[in-house]
């Protein structure tokens, strides 16, 4: 059974702070890991993905994520958040033979205080 767990339902930080959104997964075999962002009232937008190689991957708008096989994790980070980063963030896993068939975590709502 493939599962994705985002332990924090809600994270609040101040503008300019760094943030880490956590994602842990359980999946056998070769997988893709990805993060998506959902602004209020909109569909999800792709941020970044990891399959192999450098465990730190860069995405759009200053986001990066780090893969750890030992921890079964793929945490998302940003060094300095902006108010426009307020959104719900979803971690997802998919098998390498059907990369688009995504299994999502429950999502983490990121709120930015001015």
């Amino acid at each position: 059974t493939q599962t994705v767990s985002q332990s924090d339902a809600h994270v609040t930080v101040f503008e300019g702070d760094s943030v880490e959104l956590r994602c842990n997964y359980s999946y056998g075999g070769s997988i893709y890991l990805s993060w998506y962002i959902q602004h209020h009232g909109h569909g999800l937008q792709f941020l970044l993905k990891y399959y192999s190689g450098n465990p730190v991957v860069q995405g759009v708008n200053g986001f990066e994520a780090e893969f750890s096989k030992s921890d079964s994790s793929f945490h998302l980070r940003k060094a300095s958040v902006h108010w426009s980063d307020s959104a719900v963030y979803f971690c997802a896993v998919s098998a390498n033979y059907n990369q688009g068939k995504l299994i999502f975590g429950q999502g983490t709502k990121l709120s930015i205080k001015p």
Partner: protein
Amino acid sequence: EAAVTQSPRNKVTVTGGNVTLSCRQTNSHNYMYWYRQDTGHGLRLIHYSYGAGNLQIGDVPDGYKATRTTQEDFFLLLELASPSQTSLYFCASSHRGRTEVFFGKGTRLTVV
């Protein structure tokens, strides 16, 4: 950027009613997906398709049918709607099943 357009954006129907949600993508993607989004569950895959005439069962298919009539068009059918199907539905597409999936803006369905 790929465009995925869903219609209607909002729909209210009665229990036992018949509902069709429509989705059209204009970037020549061959894979299309229907997800539902519920608080506490994230997004869950209902059905997906590799191309016109193809249909694959997702993770939560009960109570739903789908049909892919063309490369561009993917429909989700609820023939006997129930209150448990009140949800936010997203259509999505990707090129050859790649992990970068493009989502529509969603259809909010309420079954009363």
